[in-house]
């Protein structure tokens, strides 16, 4: 594998992991603009658990420990954060990420503003299998009754409650598990590049991850995979194509096209690329046991 392709693959894998972390709460309608915060927590925690100046644990222990650490923090803050709704939640998670970044910059034992070197190295043979595991886990998670509850909460919280769904518990679980996935992605980032600084995990990163998820679609587990792949691959591919074809304007302006695409997607397919109905239609016949019963009431009002 060429170095260039490998580098792109790593970026793609990390984007996918981050996106699933944002997707799980988004599937229940919670918009989390704090991805950078949880990624920072994971990256720094794993780096410290791993570092010779820290706990000196091997990477395979430091990463899960970082996930648990992030999970505990996410669980604790999920209760106040989930009091907020809509645009308030977007802003509160954004504020949380800024707070985390502010803390990381000021902690001298993890390097402070100068950044923090990470010891153990995770190469593509670690990151790709972990990414596949994350994808499979997310598909499983969304296929469970808990996943069904999350999707119901997204659609109509009060009706979900009346059918026995414990709305708050479900939301807390989605938020916490999502944070742990982002933590995993953050640790892998640190162990791959072997150097982290809080400024890398900025609001732009949070925005892009939320965009992957909303553009891919929040209804099925395909959404983040499609969204992240599309975002990570298409601009890069466009650059390659444009440069080899000598289209300088396209290479430079590809992000303009990209922005136009986002705007148009929201106009024509506002629920994202992949929806539940599209999934059913594509997978039709595969899981369908029998044809829909001919319905004599189909002509009703």
């Amino acid at each position, binding site marked *: 594998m060429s170095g260039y392709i490998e580098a792109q693959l790593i970026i793609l894998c990390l984007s996918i992991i981050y996106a699933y972390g944002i997707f799980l709460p988004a599937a229940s309608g919670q918009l989390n603009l704090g991805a950078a915060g949880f990624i920072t927590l994971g990256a720094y925690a794993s780096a410290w658990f791993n570092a010779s100046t820290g706990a000196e644990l091997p990477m395979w222990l430091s990463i899960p420990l970082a996930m648990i650490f992030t999970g505990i923090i996410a669980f604790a803050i999920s209760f106040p954060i989930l009091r907020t709704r809509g645009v308030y939640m977007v802003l509160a998670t954004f504020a949380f990420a800024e707070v985390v970044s502010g803390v990381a910059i000021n902690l001298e034992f993890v390097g402070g503003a100068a950044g923090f070197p990470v010891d153990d190295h995770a190469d593509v043979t670690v990151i790709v299998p972990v990414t596949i595991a994350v994808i499979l886990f997310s598909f499983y998670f969304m296929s469970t009754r808990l996943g069904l509850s999350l999707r119901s909460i997204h659609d109509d919280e009060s009706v979900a409650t009346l059918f026995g769904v414990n709305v708050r518990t479900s939301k807390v679980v989605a938020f916490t598990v999502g944070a742990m996935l982002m933590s995993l992605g953050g640790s892998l980032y640190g162990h791959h590049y072997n150097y982290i600084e809080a400024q890398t995990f900025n609001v732009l990163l949070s*925005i892009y991850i939320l965009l992957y998820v909303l553009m891919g679609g929040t209804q099925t587990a395909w959404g983040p995979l499609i969204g992240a792949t599309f975002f990570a691959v298409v601009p890069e591919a466009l650059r390659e194509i444009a440069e080899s074809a000598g289209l300088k304007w396209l290479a430079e302006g590809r992000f303009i096209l990209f922005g136009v695409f*986002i705007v148009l997607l929201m106009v024509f397919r506002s629920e994202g690329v992949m929806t539940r109905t599209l999934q059913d239609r594509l997978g039709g016949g595969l899981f369908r046991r029998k044809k829909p019963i001919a319905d004599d009431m189909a002509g009703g009002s």
Partner: protein
Amino acid sequence: MLIIQQLVNGLMLGGVYVMVAVAFTLIIGMLNFLNFTIPALFMFAAVLMYATMMGHLPFGNDLILSVFGTEYRWVAGIIVALVVIALVSLVIERFTYRYMKAKYGDATEHALPLVSSLGFLIIFEHLVVSTWGSDPLTATSPFGQGTFSIDTIIFSVPQIVSLVLSLVVVVMLSVMLKATKLGRALRAIAERPDTAILMGVEVSRIVPVVYVITGLLCAVSGILFTINYATVDAYVGDTVATVAIAGMVLGGLGNVWGAIIGGLFIGMLEVMSIYIVGADFAKLPIWGLLLVLLVFKPTGLFGHTLIGKGKF
């Protein structure tokens, strides 16, 4: 004395944020959505002001030079920035709001305009990068470095003018909201969208007006930014937006006067804390406070909301 000087500088910096914070708060109050085209419009206006003044527009430089001469090209800059931003605002309204009718009333529908507005942010930033490059662009101020001092505190004339101007604009805006027919319609929509429609407020006509108003607020703010700080780039909106959002949250979402006080306060706090403890440390207390406010007192520090939170 240095502290007072820093306070003055902070107040001036806050003056730039104020209008952006008011723009954010107006859109959230009226349409219940966090509009990320606001930093884009701010930045675009600042860059247009620079480009017109310095003769770096993609076209029309000679025409402007022949009409205004080198001396008054800043006037042309103001006109170009205001007109372009007003037109662009109408386009943005079409694509972030007009097609985004709630279909199912589910929990993520309110995010659709947010996503489109991020699309616009990307478009404008890269439009500027591909036209003018990503390096900082430096303009020469048409007013020189006029300063005067009281005792030992130095005041910059353009900064004072900007601060006064932004306060005047915002006061006019809030008078407009209170006293005019348009203002009453706007508030009716913000407070009781359903009733407003029943009462015959034409929502489809009012929303573009809101967009143009907020667009012009951003434009004025961006123009003043170029005049004061002389250096702009494609990403200048992002930083300003972060601070303006902080000011808005502090004042309570949808509260115009809250946004003004919040914006000025955050500006001063920023300058002061950089002066006292360093820029990196400042983030923590500011955003910590905002997080607590958002969760436990979402109406902001002043409690009462001038224009309510609503959506159509």
